[in-house]
């Protein structure tokens, strides 16, 4: 957690310095303005999004689901996780807390990765609110078909990686 904090603020200072040396104070002002606008827009959604995630965590049988998609659930677990992730409404503020509950409940790493990837790619709410209105349903259909296998691939890759990490030292 602390590493994340430090990483972010190191980024901020490095980028800030780059912007300042290339575009001067004006560049910094524009950056601040952009950040401020986003902050206002996020602050209207975030409290409700977080509450929704907390409520869902209370209602949903997350522990049972985490058991179903445990480390031994294999390919079927990966596919179920990808679909569950895609059905999850909301942005990162709701989905990561839920993924975290999955993780704490005992889901395997490949299944969690499939869950996060499924949400990243299919995000029902994002498709309905942003993608379909701007790009049209035909675009959405082509994109969803071309991306359909990605969360499952991600889960399988992680499975290979962790399998190798665990098995290799025993040889």
């Amino acid at each position, binding site marked *: 957690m602390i590493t994340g904090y430090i990483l972010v603020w190191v980024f901020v200072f490095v980028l800030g310095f780059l912007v300042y040396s290339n575009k001067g104070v004006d560049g910094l002002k524009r950056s601040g303005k952009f950040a401020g606008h986003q902050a206002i827009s996020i602050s*209207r959604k975030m409290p409700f999004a977080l509450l929704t995630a907390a409520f869902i965590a209370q209602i949903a049988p997350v522990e049972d689901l985490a058991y179903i998609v445990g480390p031994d659930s294999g390919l079927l677990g990966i596919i179920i996780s990808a679909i569950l992730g895609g059905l999850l409404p909301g942005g990162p503020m709701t989905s990561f807390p839920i993924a975290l509950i999955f993780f704490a409940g005992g889901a395997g790493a490949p299944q969690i990765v499939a869950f996060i990837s499924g949400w990243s790619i299919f995000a029902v709410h994002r498709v309905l609110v942003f993608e379909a209105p701007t790009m049209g349903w035909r675009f959405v259909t082509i994109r969803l078909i071309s991306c359909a296998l*990605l969360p499952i691939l991600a889960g399988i890759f992680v499975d290979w990686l962790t399998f190798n990490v665990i098995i290799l030292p025993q040889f």
Partner: protein
Amino acid sequence: MSKSDNFFVFLALITGAICYFTNGLTGIYSALDYSLNLIILILPTLAGGLLIGGLIQQFIDQDKINKALGEKSGLSGLLFATLAGVITPGGPFTSFPIVFALWVAGADIGALVAYIAAWSLIGIYRLVIWEIPMMGLDLSLIRFLVSIPLPLIAGISARWIVKNTPLKPQVKSNK
């Protein structure tokens, strides 16, 4: 944007009501407690991430991006789209307007699909603000690493679909 504000309020009300009926007031209280703790936890990184978004925007030259993403841009166009997706900051309210603008400007569907896949799967912005603080460094980095080739696969599939099936995308004329 106000529509999606309402959407979150609506979701919170519905899930809150269900939570009240199944878990009673204790359920509501512990959900409030959980959310409040999470806000405090996220706030420092969220503020930093928003500033990063603003700073990165100062370096994006849209004309150059449009030229590099056309139909005949080949694999390098897909790679470039992937890279652009990785560095695009912000939520869907910033990325989809960019996708639409690129589409009208002549970017092909393979590049756009690769861009969206890259932005949603391996966007550094989301990785740094949300995923690393919440999921931890190890899991986040493993997920990031395995996802690197995925936008390319998506872009190639999209081009294949448009070429070999009756599904063709149509650019909507301006609203």
